[in-house]
């Protein structure tokens, strides 16, 4: 199907192609929203499934009154710190494990053991250590994002083309500067892949942590809206965080494409 439609799009003049593709991409969402509007209040009670029109008027209210922004900023701050830390430590750990046997031997067991655990299951423990609030949310985001970044950095640093390392050696690069002169830059594309995987994971972890252990943030707004039975407000917050996550992923892809002009 996709193939057939993209062929038809290619037949259009160039400037129209992008617009046509965008419209096509959003059509499924439009269909669902329309169905949702029709079903709400007819097949399903409006109190359980508020119609998109009700949700959007609350959404506008949340934005116009500015109520959502203080929570959104806190949520984004938690993501920025948690994801930032996971990139920093994940890259160091991944490259370190790939290039040094003692480092690999030491950390391997932890990564293998923690890999299958959903990091949100650690929220109660994080509350015990760090209490309810920002630190707990940051820790959960950090832990959830760490593995994809470590794994991508590790695999790439293991696979650095031997002749690149030799080429640098012959020109006088010593063992230590090899890491940042050759191994790190050679690993950047895969690090970007890891971060691309981590960005949506960060939002999942954040909202999960905020639902349980926070008095602020979008997750908290979703929870409390539900608790007081204001479902349009709950949906509006879900829509907001989904839209923000979507923009974050697209924004990161844009940054990545600019950084990786050489690939």
């Amino acid at each position, binding site marked *: 199907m996709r193939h057939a439609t993209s062929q038809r799009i290619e037949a259009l003049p160039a400037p129209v192609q992008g617009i046509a593709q965008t419209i096509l991409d959003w059509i499924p969402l439009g269909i669902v929203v329309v169905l949702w509007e029709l079903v709400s209040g007819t097949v399903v009670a409006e109190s359980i499934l508020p119609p998109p029109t009700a949700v959007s008027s609350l959404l506008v209210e949340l934005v116009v009154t500015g109520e959502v922004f203080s929570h959104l900023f806190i949520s984004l701050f938690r993501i920025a710190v948690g994801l930032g830390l996971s990139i920093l430590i994940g890259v160091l750990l991944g490259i370190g494990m790939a290039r040094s046997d003692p480092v690999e031997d030491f950390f391997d067991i932890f990564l293998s053991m923690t890999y299958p655990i959903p990091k949100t299951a650690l929220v109660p423990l994080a509350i015990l250590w760090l209490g309810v609030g920002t630190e707990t949310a940051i820790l959960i985001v950090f832990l959830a994002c760490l593995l994809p970044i470590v794994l991508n950095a590790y695999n790439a640093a293991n696979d650095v083309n031997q002749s690149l390392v*030799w080429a640098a050696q012959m020109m006088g690069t010593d063992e230590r500067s090899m890491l940042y002169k050759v191994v790190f830059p050679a690993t950047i594309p895969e690090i970007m892949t890891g971060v691309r995987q981590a960005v949506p994971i960060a939002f999942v972890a954040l909202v999960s942590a905020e639902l349980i252990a926070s008095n602020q943030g979008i997750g908290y707004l979703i929870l409390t809206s539900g608790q007081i039975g204001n479902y349009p407000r709950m949906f509006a917050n879900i829509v907001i965080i989904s839209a923000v996550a979507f923009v974050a992923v697209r924004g990161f892809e844009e940054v990545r494409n600019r950084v990786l002009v050489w690939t």
Partner: protein
Amino acid sequence: MDGRVTISELEKVYGEGPERTKAIEDLSFEVEGGEFVSVVGPSGCGKSTLLYLIAGFLDTTSGTIAVDDTPISGPGTDRGVVFQDYALFPWRTVFENVTYGLEENDIPKEERQSIAQKYIDLVDLDGFEDKYPKELSGGMKQRVGIARTLAYEPKILLMDEPFGALDQPLREALQDQLRDIWDDLGKTIVFITHDVEEAVYLSERVLIMTRHPGTRKSVAEIDLDRSRTREEIVTSDEFAQYKNSVWRSLHEETQTEVTL
């Protein structure tokens, strides 16, 4: 003249126990300073291993390799390798690839730029300074590889089938360019190839290696009048004779391979 490579009773063994394979056995050979020597041999004869041993990337099992009577221990900027797969840094532009060795040897920035430009011009890549390797064709990539290695001015160029991945007209163009560079700069060149014609056309001597484990089988002295054009050289009788004798010597080795 500087840049003499002396190989004495060289042996290289890979692996241990049942995995143990001898790549090179009892090889002694001397490359004069400023000489152009090609190394040919059946595949698996250890000719690339030999090159990487001279480069210092691999350790010898026994025997020594010396440059101007000083035994080597690891890679050094007196030797420069041109790799078969180019080994350009993909995140660096053409210009930045060529300046890499100069940065590593603490050459001041302005000097770096003029030296890099000189060698980029030498391999006819002016105008491509700001391109990334992915934007270049194979032949252009290898010219960057050559410029990058020449830029930090090693005495010895070690070339591992550098034109192996290129098509015939491009190979010939690059061979001629390499001959010109050799004439101008007077480097010692050790050139690995499996192409007999390429070896005879380029070099003053051809070292023919035996098949597994590799050692010196014979050495052919090539004495061609290089002042002529390529066409005059490759169509001459003497060229054909040199080519045939190297081919015959090499063919005995490949015959052995088949009967084994």
